[in-house]
């Protein structure tokens, strides 16, 4: 008789999901699934809308990473207009995207995951939240709040709003950067860098307590995917799509990543609204790969900024050239924040960033467009088809959390097999199953284009489907 555990809803992630853990006749974990239980369907909502509306419309997919959708959508629209945005517009889009990575990673690391890292996975759930962090390590909490505030203020100063700014438009951006705004951002960078360096120093000590979790939280060989620039440095706006294997060897490089159907498949499982992307050469479900901060560090030769590269060297010195455990997403996230802050300083130092030539204007010149960029959680693709009047006929979005779906399911199963030993759920058991999902920082609002926060529901089911135990929070 097999039995099943269900965790629903999962907490401290973005969206709604549940986890089921299937037990076999001997009470051992046979399998586990991460179910995404929400649905909105933006691919259908956008049909019939004018293509010029799409960046702003698609940004509504998410309140955490709307800028990522703005960028990918605008790039797809650029192709439909057959325009090349002016160089300054590209820099300004890049600045907003970097700021987005900073604020989103800060939310993930400090608000959602640092409580586990500060108090441990066995600690009382009542204290494992940002405000618990505030009591135990006020500087860590201040740094988290400050970094998220910094990223959001950069977005607001460019786009007028910190959530759903309409400033990124087909052909470029809506308005140039004012010198005063540039100076304000530059003035705030040193404190943001200092906060990130404090968090890195703290993390590198704190993580030593979690050697067992690091060896169990999604530690398996897989491919990794992300964008790199011409010199092999990490890239968030545009570049070559590189895939490396578990040993770090390059499996594929796509200088033009847009025809994604040539190399990616998207499978649909009846138990989740989240599609499972897979690497076609390896088939389904064997073609598991990971995206996001850990993947970007693994695919890049280096990051291309001095402070972040020093951290990357230490990271690889500790963990190897291609760390395989998803636990290290946390460390990668902090290194990437540091890189983004350095990169922001570099882009803003160029006087051309103040140029007023920020938009190319054109009509409908193609009936298909694809935009590819790196979102905080990984590679993001927007693909549109329009008619001759620019009315959207069809759309497909391939979202970072979908790329990671197979890896997340494998990670949940790995953690469950190690920690779930009985037919009763315990808090430390439940927390670790959730925490491995949190490593990926999934955004289910994006991946199913749905709204909401993510509480947790876990069920333990018998082989006949009866519920043995259940927790909600």
């Amino acid at each position, binding site marked *: 008789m097999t039995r099943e555990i269900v965790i629903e809803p999962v907490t401290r992630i973005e969206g709604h999901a549940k986890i089921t853990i299937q037990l076999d006749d001997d009470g051992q974990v046979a399998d586990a699934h991460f179910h995404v239980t929400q649905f909105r369907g933006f691919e259908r909502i956008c049909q019939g809308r004018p293509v010029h509306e799409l960046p702003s419309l698609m940004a509504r997919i998410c309140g955490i990473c709307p800028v990522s959708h703005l960028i990918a959508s605008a790039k797809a629209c650029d192709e439909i207009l057959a325009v090349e945005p002016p160089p300054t517009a590209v820099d300004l889009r890049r600045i907003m995207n970097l700021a987005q990575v900073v604020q989103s990673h800060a939310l993930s690391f400090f608000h959602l995951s640092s409580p586990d890292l500060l108090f441990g996975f066995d600690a009382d759930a009542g204290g494992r939240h940002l*405000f618990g962090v*505030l009591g135990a390590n006020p500087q860590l*909490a201040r740094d988290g*709040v400050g970094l*998220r*505030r*910094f990223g959001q203020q950069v977005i607001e*100063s460019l786009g007028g709003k910190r959530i759903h700014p309409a400033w990124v438009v087909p052909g470029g951006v809506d308005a140039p950067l004012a010198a005063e705004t540039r100076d304000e951002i530059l003035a705030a960078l040193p404190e943001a860098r200092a906060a990130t360096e404090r968090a890195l120093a703290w993390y590198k000590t704190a993580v030593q307590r979690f050697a067992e979790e690091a060896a169990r939280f999604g530690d398996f060989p897989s491919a990794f995917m992300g964008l790199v620039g011409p010199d092999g440095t990490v890239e968030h706006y545009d570049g070559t799509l590189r895939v490396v294997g578990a040993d770090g060897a390059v499996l594929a490089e796509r200088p033009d990543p847009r025809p994604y159907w040539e190399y990616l498949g998207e499978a649909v499982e009846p138990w989740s609204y989240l599609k499972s992307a897979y690497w076609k050469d390896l088939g389904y479900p064997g073609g598991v790969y990971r995206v996001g901060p850990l993947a970007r560090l693994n695919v890049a030769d280096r990051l291309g900024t001095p402070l972040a590269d020093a951290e990357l060297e230490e990271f690889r010195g500790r963990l190897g050239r291609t760390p395989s455990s998803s636990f290290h997403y946390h460390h990668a996230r902090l290194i990437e924040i540091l890189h983004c802050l350095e990169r922001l300083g570099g882009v803003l130092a160029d006087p051309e960033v103040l140029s007023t030539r920020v938009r190319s204007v054109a009509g409908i010149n193609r009936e298909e467009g694809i935009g590819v960029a790196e979102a905080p959680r990984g590679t993001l693709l927007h693909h549109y088809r329009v008619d001759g009047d620019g009315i959207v006929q069809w759309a497909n979005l391939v979202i970072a959390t979908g790329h990671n779906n197979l890896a997340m399911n494998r990670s949940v199963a790995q953690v469950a097999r190690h920690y779930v030993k009985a037919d009763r759920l315990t808090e430390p058991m439940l927390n670790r199953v959730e925490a491995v999902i949190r490593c990926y920082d999934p955004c289910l609002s994006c991946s199913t284009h749905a709204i909401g926060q993510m509480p947790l529901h876990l069920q333990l089911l018998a082989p006949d489907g009866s519920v043995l135990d259940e927790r909600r929070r």
Partner: protein
Amino acid sequence: MTHAGVLVVGYGSFLRSDDGIGWHAAGLLAADPRLAGTRVLARHQLVPELAADVSRASLVVLVDAAAEGDPGSLSVRRVQPRPPTPATWSHHLDPETLAGLAEALYGLVPPIVLVSVAAGSLAEGDRLSGALERALPQVVEVVADVVTGHHRA
């Protein structure tokens, strides 16, 4: 990106009719010469990132819609800091918790005044109901009085 002085925050959902009263008021207050030098923000909700702005201000005025009361009626009250609780979710704070967070994070919390306007309609839409459209000038006057009174003191 640091600011001192008075901070006014109008908050709510601009796309839920009267819940957008804070946004409408913020738009008018930002252009009001009586509030020259005041920092005016419009926000969907109160979030932890506002704690730094709050702690650096000499006075904070919050403008929000209230779910109860006669549509368009105003209430004005001081906000007392409340320590953050485990149940607080980091995406959204109430005024008391925001004040408590500012105090806990930065050790400073200025006087905070909440101006609430009872909503008549929270239906989808970006326009105020008639009752709140009529109340909007009074909201601006009340906030301006609080701010100018603070400067005189």
